[in-house]
């Protein structure tokens, strides 16, 4: 029975990928670059939130500090292109490694803290990094790095007139990160992550080195986050501290994941699918009014979802399936009775 389930799930996954590959061929999408933009953002934020989900959702360590890793990745790519005139790739790799190192260095002491103390410590870390990058001359401080006009194409990972390659770039990111998490979820590491989330003492008593588990989760999460950051900067062709390394940026990742359902594989995707279009389209519709109408609505919806379904949209989905299952059970029982 397990095997069959697995095969079915694999099938869904491959179908999803094929569908995503085919989306740009829909004429409406191909013609509308804003739709493409929204799709790219959905994939990017789903990937980024999934990276956060590893540590925040599965392992239960709610970090508001992920914009630091996102930002380091972004600066890696940005510095390679702007400061050294190289293609972004070496910068991306270096940035990702650096982000991992930073993640390990700062989270090792922070893991001593629990609950809200950990969350606030990560706030502080973001603020410190933000302000240091603001004055760090080598990375251009508050001025940020603006991309020069360089040759378009995969070598520089840069296009001006079309968004389709960006879409596929984001898709690759999405497949890699979701694939990794899918793999983890079904294997020992994933179970260990959840064990640490549920009860650290029990995990330790069961032979799990919880510090090691948390650290490796953080390192992996930061590594993947850095890639997302690099993609973000290649997409926007500019990087400055407020744009990639601030609490608001971190908040989006957390929101997307929680909204979709933390600690679930498809939570981040669902969250991004709802939140990102909402954010983009409300801005398009009402942003021009200049009255913050879009953001009022956005805030209201966040409250609404949290109040109605604290477990996120995946909670809703689960509830629905449980309800169906329950009905089955009940009808089966009634069959027996009568």
């Amino acid at each position, binding site marked *: 029975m397990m095997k069959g389930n697995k095969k079915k799930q694999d099938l869904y996954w491959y179908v999803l990928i094929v569908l995503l590959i085919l989306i740009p061929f829909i004429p409406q999408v191909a013609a509308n670059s804003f739709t493409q933009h929204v799709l790219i953002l959905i994939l990017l934020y789903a990937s980024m939130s999934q990276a956060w989900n590893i540590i925040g959702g599965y392992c239960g360590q709610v970090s508001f500090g992920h914009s630091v890793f996102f930002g380091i990745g972004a600066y890696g790519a940005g510095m390679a292109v702007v400061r050294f005139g190289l293609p972004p790739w070496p910068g991306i790799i270096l940035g990702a490694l650096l982000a991992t190192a930073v993640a390990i260095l700062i989270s090792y002491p922070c893991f001593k803290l629990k609950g809200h103390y950990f969350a606030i410590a990560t706030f502080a870390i973001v603020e410190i990094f933000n302000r240091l990058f603001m004055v760090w001359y080598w990375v251009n401080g*508050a001025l940020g790095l603006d991309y020069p006009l360089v040759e378009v194409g995969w070598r520089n990972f840069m296009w001006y007139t079309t968004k389709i390659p960006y879409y596929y770039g984001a898709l690759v990111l999405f497949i890699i990160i979701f694939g990794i998490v899918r793999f983890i979820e079904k294997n020992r590491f994933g179970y260990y992550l959840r064990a640490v989330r549920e009860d650290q003492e029990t995990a330790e008593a069961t032979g799990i080195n919880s510090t090691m588990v948390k650290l490796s989760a953080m390192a992996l999460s930061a590594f993947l986050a850095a890639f997302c950051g690099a993609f973000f900067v290649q997409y*926007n062709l500019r990087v400055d501290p407020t744009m990639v390394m601030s609490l608001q940026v971190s908040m989006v990742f957390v929101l997307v994941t929680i909204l979709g359902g933390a600690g679930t594989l498809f939570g981040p995707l669902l969250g991004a699918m709802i939140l990102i279009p909402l954010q983009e389209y409300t801005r398009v519709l009402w942003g021009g009014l*200049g009255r913050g109408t879009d953001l009022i609505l956005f805030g209201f919806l966040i409250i609404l979802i949290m109040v109605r379904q604290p477990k996120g949209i995946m909670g809703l989905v689960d509830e629905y399936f449980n309800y169906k299952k329950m009905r089955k059970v009940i009808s089966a029982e009634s069959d027996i009775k009568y």
Partner: protein
Amino acid sequence: MIYFLKKFSLILLTFILVFTLLSGVVLAQEKVIKIGTLFPLTGSCALAGSRCKAAVETAVEVINNAHPECDVPLAAQEGILGGYKIVLVHADHQGKPDIAKTEAERLFNQEKVYAIVGCYNSACTNPASFVAERQGKIFMCGCSSSAALTERGLKYFFRMAPTDKTESIEFCDVMEWMNEVKGTNLHTIGIIYENTEFGKHAADEGKLAAAEAGFEVIADVPFSPGATNMNSEVQTLKAKNPDVVFGACLGGDYTLWVRTMKQMDWLPKMCLNYCTGYQDPVIAQQLGDDGNYFMGGTGYSPEFADLMPAVAAVENIYKTKIGPSVPFDSDSIQEAVATFILAQAIEKAGTLDYDKVSETLYANEWDSPLSMGGKVAFVPGGQNAKAMSMMTQLQGGEYKRVYPPELATHDIIFPMIPWNQR
């Protein structure tokens, strides 16, 4: 309650859906030129953004309809190119460069706007104008002040306002002039600026200009915008005690700065401000007596009426859009200028072809009653070579022209009157 929330959310979702569908339907209208505006309508620069937006709306109102009371180009006729009306599409970039880029792309690709006017924040103008340049479309920039913007060699980018560089040099000129004519002994400079793209640019240019003119910058005080207090910043200035302070603090930070100086009972001899909170007439009004004797570069103020007689009539229209007590300020008026110049160029070129319009823009010197000096002309890179600003000093809550001497109406009150003698 829950029931209410449930119902409400349902209604809301329906609304979103309907609007999304509707937004795709372009109202068929002939003879329309769509122009996009891109300003920070929310976030910390929302105030300035909403004024800029209103200024562009004012300009379009004047261009589209017959306004014989306004003595500006295109006011008398209705529309341009023989009846084309300008329709504005507004967008909000929230002060974020990534959103600015996205919105610029959306305006060009989806809304099919002809050109964009924007973006106030230099950090946002930069990526947004790249989008325009790549597509070969025109980007009109009113008041973004970073000098770097027009040093990129773009072909379709035009900026009206003077840059930080111009202003910095002017500041130093004022100091030299004071030393020469009034025999003051101004030598040291302190720079206080918000640590953002804007502030950093301004401060860098200020330092360059000071070095060139032989002044010494002894205090370099960046601060984080939106601070809860500015005690340490002002204390640092007070401890170094420079003769002159260059300030680049926007809105709320500006008032906090001024009031903190008051509380700390300190003032420099002279205080020169970039186009910042100083220029905001509403802030000047609110600060009242505390705001007096500060100086700064100003592109427009109601007190300039005799210099720029044509503004008043336009300003009346502007006031209907933004509020009866808000006159133009140096930033917003530049956005109106940008809109006028674009319309004039289209009218003169007689076509909507981008290359032709761009060539026309470069080839001519434009009448611009809303600009100080009355002329606009572009040099390669898109900078308005005729951009000017005057040094003003707030005296009795009004921006008095104090420099250059040939246009001045009042003397500089020097040094600034100490707090306890006001």
